C-alpha cells in the first residue's frame, strides 16, 4: 500500500499539485488558458465591485505579440486590494476569503493564482498588479509564485498614483488569441446578461472594440453571510463549531450555530434524538458529535433555508438584458427555491425567450449561468443540459415557432461543479427535479403564448370565409332541389356573427 518502503515521501504544496495538474483548473492548452485567465480576472473584478456597491466598469484588453504570447489586462473600479494582502492574494495558491456563506462568483481561492502560475511557467513573466484602496494613493507590484513552497515572491513594489479606487492586473501568458477570441467575446456578452448593471469593454490588439452589459442602473442588494442550515452539518463542521465555544450548552449551541433552528425546534429535536440539552458541547466525544451531526442531517422538520445569502438576477433585470442584447421577445420567467442541497441554500431561475438570433432547433437553445457566471463548456455533463432533453418540447412548442432559447441561472452558496474548471453542474437528484419543474413551467408559458397568437390570426378570416361557404351551400341546394332562384343569406349570416363573433 501507498508507495515503497524506500519511497521518497514528502508533502506537495497546493501550487505544486496544480502545477502538475493544471488541466484540472482550466489551463489545458493555450486556447483554454487565455480564456480561463480572462474569466478569472473578470469574475474577481465583478465580485470586488459588488462589495464596493458601485456600478461596475470593467475594461479588458488583450494584446497578442508574435507567436503565442498574449498580455491580458483587466481593470476595475472595485474596492482595491489592501497592500498587506497583495502578495498572498496573487502569489499563493488556495489563499482567499473565509468559509463562504453567501453567493460569490469565485470560491476556490484558485483562479487568479492559477493564471499567475501559468503565466509564470509559460512565459517567465510575473503578474503586474496596480491597485488603489480608499486608504492609499495606489501601488504597483510585480509578483511570482514559489511553486515548491507555495509562497509569493514580490519582485518589485512601487508607489504609482491611480486616479480612482480599483485594481488593474496584467498577466502575460502563452495563449492563442485567434482560437479563443470567439469564446472570450461570448463569455463577456453573457456576463453582461447575468450582471446587467455592469458595463464591460473589450479591446483586442487595439483593432477590435466591444461593449457589453450596462442594461440597468440598479445595483442588486448584496447577499449577506448566513448561518449554515442544519442539513449541512457534516462532522467536520460540527467539530469546528463546537471548538469555537466549547462551554455552550447543547441547546444554546444549536440555536446559535444554525439557521432554521430556534428554541422550539431545538427542544423538539433534542428530545427526539434523546440528547441532554444541558450538556456542554465541549464535553461530547467524537462519537457523540458524530451522532449529533448525523441526526441534524437526517431530521426532516427543519424549515426551508433563508434566501438572504443569495442574489438571483430577477425577472425584470433578466428580461431587460435579454431583450436588449438579443432583440428578443421574452415569453416567461420562473423561479424555484430557496431550497437546499446537502444543506446549501440555492435558487434556480429561468427565462424563455424567442429571437431570430437563437439557433433553430427542436429543443430550445440553452444559456447556462451559475452564481451569475456564464458556463460555456462541458455542456453534455451539465444537469441543466441533460434535463433539457427530458422535456417533451414538441408538446409545448408548435413547429412554426423557432429560435427559442432558455436562460437558466443556478445560485447557491456552494455550486456542485463537476470539475475545477467550473463549466458544468453535477446532477444532484433534488436539483434535477427542481430544474424539470422550472422547464415545464416555462414550457407551459410558451404554449399559452403561441396559442394566443394563433387565435387572433384565425378570427379575422373567419366571417368572410363562412359567408362564401354558406352562399355556395344555398346555391348547390337550389340546384339539387331544381329551383332557379337562390335565397338571400346575408341577414342570417350577419345575425349569426353578431352573437357569435368570437367563437
Amino acid at each position, binding site marked *: 500500500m501507498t508507495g515503497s518502503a524506500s519511497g521518497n515521501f514528502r508533502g506537495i504544496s497546493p501550487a505544486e499539485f496544480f502545477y502538475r495538474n493544471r488541466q484540472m483548473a482550466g489551463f489545458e492548452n493555450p486556447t483554454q488558458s487565455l480564456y480561463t485567465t480572462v474569466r478569472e480576472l473578470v469574475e474577481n473584478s465583478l465580485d470586488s465591485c459588488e462589495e464596493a456597491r458601485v456600478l461596475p466598469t470593467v475594461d479588458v484588453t488583450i494584446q497578442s505579440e508574435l507567436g503565442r504570447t498574449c498580455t491580458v489586462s483587466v481593470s476595475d473600479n472595485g474596492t482595491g486590494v489592501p497592500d498587506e494582502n497583495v502578495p498572498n492574494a496573487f502569489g499563493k495558491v488556495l489563499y482567499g476569503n473565509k468559509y463562504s456563506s453567501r453567493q460569490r462568483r469565485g470560491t476556490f481561492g484558485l483562479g487568479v493564482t492559477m493564471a499567475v502560475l501559468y503565466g509564470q511557467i509559460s512565459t517567465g513573466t510575473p503578474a503586474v498588479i496596480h491597485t488603489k484602496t480608499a486608504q492609499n494613493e495606489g501601488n504597483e507590484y510585480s509578483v511570482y509564485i514559489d511553486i515548491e513552497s507555495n509562497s509569493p515572491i514580490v519582485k518589485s513594489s512601487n508607489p504609482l498614483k491611480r486616479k480612482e479606487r480599483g485594481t488593474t492586473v496584467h498577466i502575460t501568458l502563452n495563449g492563442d488569441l485567434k482560437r479563443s477570441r470567439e469564446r472570450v467575446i461570448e463569455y463577456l456578452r453573457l456576463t453582461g446578461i447575468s450582471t446587467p448593471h455592469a458595463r464591460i469593454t473589450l479591446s483586442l490588439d487595439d483593432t477590435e472594440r466591444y461593449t457589453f452589459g450596462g442594461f440597468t442602473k440598479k445595483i442588486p442588494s448584496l447577499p449577506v453571510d448566513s448561518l449554515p442550515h442544519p442539513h449541512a452539518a457534516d462532522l467536520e463542521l460540527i467539530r469546528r463549531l463546537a471548538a469555537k465555544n466549547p462551554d455552550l450548552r447543547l441547546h444554546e449551541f444549536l440555536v446559535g450555530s444554525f439557521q432554521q433552528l430556534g428554541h422550539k425546534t431545538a427542544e423538539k429535536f433534542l428530545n427526539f434524538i434523546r440528547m441532554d440539552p444541558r450538556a456542554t458541547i465541549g464535553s461530547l466525544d467524537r462519537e457523540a458529535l458524530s451522532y449529533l451531526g448525523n441526526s441534524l442531517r437526517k431530521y426532516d422538520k427543519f424549515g426551508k433555508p433563508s434566501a438572504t445569502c443569495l442574489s438571483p438576477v430577477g425577472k425584470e433585470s433578466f428580461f431587460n438584458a435579454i431583450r436588449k442584447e438579443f432583440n428578443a421577445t421574452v415569453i416567461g420567467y420562473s423561479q424555484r427555491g430557496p431550497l437546499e442541497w446537502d444543506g446549501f441554500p440555492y435558487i434556480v431561475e429561468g427565462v424563455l425567450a424567442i429571437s431570430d438570433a437563437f439557433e433553430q432547433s427542436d429543443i430550445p437553445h440553452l444559456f447556462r449561468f451559475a452564481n451569475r457566471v456564464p458556463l460555456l463548456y462541458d455542456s453534455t455533463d451539465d444537469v441543466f443540459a441533460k434535463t433539457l432533453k427530458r422535456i417533451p418540447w414538441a408538446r409545448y412548442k408548435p413547429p412554426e415557432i423557432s429560435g427559442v432559447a432558455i436562460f437558466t441561472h443556478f445560485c447557491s452558496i456552494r455550486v456542485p461543479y463537476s470539475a475545477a474548471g467550473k463549466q458544468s453542474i453535477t446532477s444532484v437528484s433534488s436539483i434535477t427535479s427542481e430544474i424539470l419543474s422550472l422547464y415545464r413551467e416555462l414550457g407551459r408559458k410558451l404554449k399559452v403564448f403561441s396559442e394566443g397568437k394563433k387565435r387572433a390570426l384565425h378570427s379575422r378570416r373567419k366571417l368572410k370565409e363562412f359567408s362564401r361557404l354558406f352562399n355556395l*351551400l344555398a346555391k348547390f*341546394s337550389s340546384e339539387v*332541389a331544381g329551383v332557379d332562384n337562390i335565397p338571400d343569406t346575408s341577414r342570417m349570416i350577419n345575425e349569426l356573427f353578431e352573437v357569435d363573433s368570437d367563437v
Partner: protein
Amino acid sequence: MSDMSDPIKSLTELGKKILSSIEDGHFPRIEIPARSTENIVFDEQTEQFILGDSRTTRDSSNSKHIRSFMQLMWIASFSKRLLESGRTSSLRDLYYSSEAFGVRFKDQAESDRLLSDLEALIEYPRESLGFFPEEHSSIYGKVIMRYTVKGYEDKEVDLTISPDGLPIGPALLSASPVRTDAKLILAVESGGMFSRLIETRCWERFDCILVHLGGQAPRSTRRLMRRLHDELHLPVKIFTDGDPWGMHIARVIIAGSANAAHIRDLAIPTAEWIGVNADDIVRYNLPCEDMNNRDLKRLDELSKDSRYLSDDWQSAIESFRRLRKKAEQQAFSRFGIDFVVDEYLPTKIQ
C-alpha cells in the same frame, strides 16, 4: 328517406328540405348515420353489418361544419346532373370537377369520404348515383345478361363471349341477369388463377361462374355477385391466398365491410371461404413464407373484429397464428399446373 323510389327523387327532396330551412331563416341541419366503427352492428335479419342508430349532425351555423356541408351538397348536385344526362363519373373525375365550382377538396380522400356520407344520407350506393371505381374485376361464365345502358338497351350478352373474361364495369353492373346454366359462383383472388380456371375449362367441370376479385373486391363486384346470388339463386364460394389478407377478402364478401356498412344489399351471408387456410398449407405442404410483423398484427386486429367472433373464425385465425406461415393460391403450381383443378377444388367444392 328509404321509401323514395329513385335516386333523383331522393336528391331533389334533400335539396328542397335544405332550401326551405334557409328560406325560413333557420340554419339547415342534417343528420347522417355515423359511419364510425362504434356504430357498426351486426344485423340478425339481413345477416350483414349495418349502421346502428348513432347519427352525426352537420349544422350549417357551425363554422366547423359549413365547409363539408356545402361540399356534400355540391356532390349531390353533380350526381343529379350525371343521372339526368345518363352519364357516369370516376371518383377522380368527381374530385377534379369540383374546382370549376369554387369547391376545393383537400385531396381525393376528402371527396371520397363525402360521397360515402351522401350514400349513407340518401341510402343509395354510389353506382346508383353515377359514380364508378376505376379498378375493374372480371367475370366469366355461363350467364346471359341484358344490358340497360344507352345504345345497348335490351342487348343480351353471354358472359363466356370473351375467353379473357369481361370487365365488371358500369354497363354490366346495370345489366339484368336473364338466365344461367351455372350452379355456383366461384370468386378467386388472383388474375393468374382466374385465367388458369378459364383455360382448364374448370367452369364447365364445376358448372360455375368465375369472378376475379383482384384483391379486396370492389363494391361493384360485390354488388354484382350479390345480385347473381339473389336473382339466380347461386351459392358463392371464395378462393383466396392463404394469409390474413386473403381470409379477410372472403369475410368482407360474406359479412360486409366497415366502410360500406351504410350500403344495403352488398353482403352475402351464405357465401363460403374455401381456403387457402392454415390447415391447407400444412396438408398440401405448400411453398410458404414466414409471416411478417404486419401479417401478425393483422391477425391480432382480426381476432378482435366483431365479424370474427364465431368459434370457426377464431380457430381459423388461431391456426394461422400457430403456423406463422402464409402461402399464395399460385403456390399449388408446385405440384404441377393442373393440381388445383384436379385435386384441390374438387375436395373443397364437394
